């Protein structure tokens, strides 16, 4: 029987990984008003690159190259494809739809390459576990919590202290006023997409690591559990993405952990739980936990 503490720790680890993905959704949305439906496929690409490269480059080298590649891909998609439609709110809707098409393109190709395989990413944690008092936890999950914490703290520092972060926040509040201050809107938002792309490759590592069996073609869809996390957080709020991710991660872990007690809900309720939580939160707070003015951009 799995103890409550085990479930909580698993939930935190899951939430930490979702946070990497959800933060990506939020950063891209804040910068461009676009919901990137291709984000899961970009994540899958990151994982796939690590899987094929780690034999030659080692895990660290493969991870670095994958992060750079997905960052470059996401940035280029935004800069050279999406931005051609313009910068205003109407254009953002068109761009959001366009990401669905991009998702299909990337996913179809990757699915063809991966097929039914389970790919190992060669991460250094393997199936090692650590005893923390009464609970036993996979090293990969501890690593997920530690790495996510550091990376997310770094992203928040970027928002707060760098000219890019200030540009991004200013442009999200008032595009035209930011332009008048000389903020280069195209560059700022493309960099935001780069950041999100890089975070996705990092998240792929932990989604494929033990106790998951490895990278499979559906890993990108699992990552989309971060999507309700971003929405229930408020979609334009990085803090909301964090809170939402932890909430979704904990819910999912607890539902899965107590599935036998919840069998009235049917098998596999863990898959649905994130969306159920999202709907419940949105019923009470339609703009999300931290969404002040809703998702609308000026």
């Amino acid at each position: 029987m799995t103890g409550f503490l085990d479930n909580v720790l698993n939930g935190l680890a899951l939430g930490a990984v979702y946070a990497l993905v959800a933060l990506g959704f939020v950063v891209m949305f804040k910068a461009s008003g676009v919901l990137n439906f291709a984000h899961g496929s970009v994540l899958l690409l990151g994982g796939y690159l690590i899987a094929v490269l780690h034999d030659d480059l080692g895990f660290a080298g493969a991870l670095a190259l994958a992060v750079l590649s997905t960052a470059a891909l996401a940035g280029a998609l935004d800069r050279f494809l999406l931005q051609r439609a313009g910068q205003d709110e109407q254009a953002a809707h068109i761009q959001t739809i366009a990401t669905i098409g991009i998702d299909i393109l990337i996913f179809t190709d990757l699915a063809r390459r991966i097929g039914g395989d389970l790919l190992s990413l060669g991460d250094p944690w393997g199936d090692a576990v650590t005893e923390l008092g009464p609970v036993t936890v996979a090293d990969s999950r501890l690593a997920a919590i530690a790495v996510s914490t550091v990376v997310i703290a770094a992203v928040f520092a970027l928002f707060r202290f760098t000219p890019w972060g200030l540009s991004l926040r200013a442009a999200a509040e008032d595009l035209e006023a930011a332009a008048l201050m000389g903020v280069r809107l195209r560059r700022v938002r493309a960099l935001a997409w780069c950041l999100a792309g890089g975070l996705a490759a990092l998240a792929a590592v932990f989604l494929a690591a033990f106790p998951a069996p490895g990278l499979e073609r559906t890993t990108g869809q699992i990552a989309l559990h971060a999507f309700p996390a971003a929405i229930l957080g408020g979609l334009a709020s990085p803090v909301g993405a964090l809170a939402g991710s932890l909430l979704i991660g904990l819910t999912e872990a607890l539902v899965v952990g107590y599935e036998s007690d919840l069998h009235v809900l049917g098998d596999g309720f863990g898959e649905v739980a994130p969306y159920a939580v999202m709907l419940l939160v949105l019923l009470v707070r339609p703009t999300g936990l931290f969404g002040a003015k809703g998702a609308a951009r000026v």
Partner: protein
Amino acid sequence: MPEAPPDEPSALHIEDVDVTYGRAVSALRSVSLTVPPGSVVALLGANGAGKTTLLRAVSGTLRLHRGAVTAGRIRYGDTVLDGKDPVAAVRAGVVQVPEGRRVFPGLSVEENLRSGGLGLARRGRAEARQARERVFSLFPRLAERTHQAAGLLSGGEQQMLAIGRALMAAPRLLLLDEPSLGLAPQMVHRIAEVIREINAQGTGVLLVEQNAGMALSLADQAHVLEVGEVRLSGPAAELARTDAVRRLYLGETAEDDQGAA
């Protein structure tokens, strides 16, 4: 393109400029005017006359409204501004304060001021500190509220912040769009004093106003726009005496009024 605003103020030349929105709606036709170095020029006109459009053409934000300069030329000194990104204007030393203040409401006063320097490529700490000190000496109230969210300031304070934010880029020419809009008379008076002071420090001003009395009292030269064309031009003091301006913009009724104003 110069990396920092040139030290010497230049003249802004707007020559025969046409502006069209959405490739169909003509907003400005053959507009020409000059802002000599370090002077204050007022631009008057009713709603929809094209005043804001003209500022957008100079600052490079027409594209955000699906508009474009379709003819003519806009230069600041030797730098061509028409068809360029807003950052080109900022780096040339031309900075616009938008209509309705448009401070970043969720950012602190401090961050709003920092955002004013975002367009400059690189600048020394000394220059940034100098710009900040200038802003705080003009607006001591902002110095007391650096950590407050800009959205919580009063209307007058927001206007000060909007001007202060623009001054952080150390502009040679300031484009002001309706700075008196929605402010109490006392605050309008204060803003007018500030504009005079900024100009006395060597910064040129192109002032768009509906409050013609205030604008004409500040300006050296003035132009009146009507449906996209310059109707009247001349020294501000002279324009203030013409019947048309007095009747239409200063709210006075001429004794031999021939038609309804």
